[in-house]
């Protein structure tokens, strides 16, 4: 019994990481139909932000709290620059966007190598987040333990989802983002500066990548290629969840996390990955539009 629960929780925490990464993508890729291959490098930028902040602020807890908003701003600013210089000119050319942003991703990776060196760097997690909580003790040594860092990431992911949902639903800015997504021409003809809304959307989406990067420093190594390794899974989450659907992103992130963790337990990591991919291929054959759909200006 303990085993099932502990695998379930591992699944949830994988899902939370996925969710945090996919959330920003859901905005830029899902809502704006821009395939930004450099999104993973924005995550990397967020992670290195923690490293840099820790060089200045030695207290691990304080530096983590400072790094969160700073990473959001750093990654967000990178997103805005990318949107302004390149993507803005390529909105109707998905394939070109893909290639150009991939090039940008390679450049950013090389930059990270030049600045921080090729080997992974280490950050210190605050003491509070290094331990774990015992959910219940079975008495025979098979206690159900949950790592604090995982709980922190789960909380962060849920907070980010809540903030994004409320922002899109309640604020006039969110309403404008949704208006531009639903009908760009009409939005412009209603007097919305669509270019500015695009840039804001990109800022928020990329900023969320920065937050994800901060979270990732708690569970994995920080290196120049860390973004590439995780971005594929995040793309899958957005595609399977349905383009432009926050709710789909949330459900699929946790479902994939669970699946990965449960299959992984009975087989191996590689086999689990293969099975997850196969399931996704099968699912998309059945529902190419993803779990949920919204009529948006089309990509194809």
């Amino acid at each position, binding site marked *: 019994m303990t085993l099932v629960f502990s695998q379930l929780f591992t699944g949830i925490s994988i899902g939370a990481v996925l969710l945090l990464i996919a959330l920003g993508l859901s905005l830029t890729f899902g809502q704006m139909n821009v395939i930004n291959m450099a999104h993973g490098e924005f995550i990397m930028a967020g992670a290195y932000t923690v490293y840099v902040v820790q060089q200045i602020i030695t207290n691990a807890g304080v530096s983590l709290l400072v790094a969160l908003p700073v990473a959001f701003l750093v990654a967000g600013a990178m997103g805005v620059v990318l949107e302004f210089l390149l993507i803005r000119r390529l909105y109707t050319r998905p394939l070109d966007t893909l290639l150009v942003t991939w090039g940008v991703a390679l450049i950013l990776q090389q930059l990270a190598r030049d600045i921080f060196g090729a080997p992974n760097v280490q950050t210190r997690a605050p003491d509070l987040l290094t331990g774990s909580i015992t959910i219940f003790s079975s008495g025979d040594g098979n206690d159900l333990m949950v790592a604090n860092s995982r709980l922190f990431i789960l909380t962060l992911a849920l907070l980010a989802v809540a903030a994004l949902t409320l922002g899109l639903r309640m604020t006039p800015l969110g*309403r404008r983002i949704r208006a531009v997504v*639903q009908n760009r021409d009409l939005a412009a003809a209603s007097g*919305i500066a669509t*270019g500015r809304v695009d840039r804001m959307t990109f800022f928020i989406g990329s900023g969320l990548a920065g937050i994800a990067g901060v979270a990732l420093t708690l569970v994995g190594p920080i290196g120049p290629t860390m973004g590439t390794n995780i971005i594929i899974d995040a793309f899958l989450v957005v595609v399977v969840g349905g383009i432009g659907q926050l709710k789909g992103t949330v459900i699929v992130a946790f479902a994939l996390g669970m699946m990965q963790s449960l299959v992984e337990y009975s087989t191996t990591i590689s086999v689990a990955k293969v099975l997850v991919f196969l399931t996704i291929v099968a699912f998309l054959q059945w529902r190419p539009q993803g779990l949920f759909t919204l009529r948006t200006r089309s990509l194809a």
Partner: protein
Amino acid sequence: MSTQKPAGLRIRDLRVVFDGFAAVDGVDIDVSPGDVRFIIGPNGAGKTTLVDAVTGLVKATGSAAFDGQELLGRKVHHITRLGIGRTFQTAAVFEELTVLQNLDIAAGTNRGLLTLLRRRKSVPDSVAQAMETIGLTSARDRLAGTLAHGQKQWLEIGMLLVQDAKLLLLDEPVAGMSQDERDTTGELLGMLSEDRTVVVIEHDMDFLRRYARTVTVMHAGRILSEGSVAEVQADLKVQEVYLGHAKATSQALVQEV
């Protein structure tokens, strides 16, 4: 605002070229302040492209000025903020937003970045009034996508009302409407034109006869004829291409199909 005198639209040598094909081929149009101008013509005559050009959605050469201000070369939302409002052929509203939110978007185009993050509690007067005018007050919290076709088109007009547009460009406002809905739209049109300049693209000849003050006939990207309804109907060139007597209309329609 309603005391301000309505202003006119002046188009000179307007050209829109798509891949070598001139969709609008050197058009001159003057719409005087307060006019209700209908633009008609067979499919592919360039009517919608003309409106797209004036509102900045497609690139054009020549000149299109409203109230003395040149429109060509400006961004779409700048043109909108100069008081040019338009509707689209396919009842374009934000389907996943409520009626009120649709109107709110149209009303709040000049708000700054910070106020964009603040939630506003009350409904502004202009929005409430527009909702009343288009008869959608009771539907204010419904998603626009769930409205009937006619209601969507009224919502579009309502959005122009709250934008405080001085020049309204309506692309087939009664397409797909029942007779009752047409009458309501006609009344709405009459009210709108009291202190605004209105340009209507329409295929419905009955609607045109009842509500048009002046008519422009377009054919193959050019102006074929211009004048009052009676003048245009009497024009032999027009009868040849399209419109006019029941006979000619039905023949033209058959040819079009």
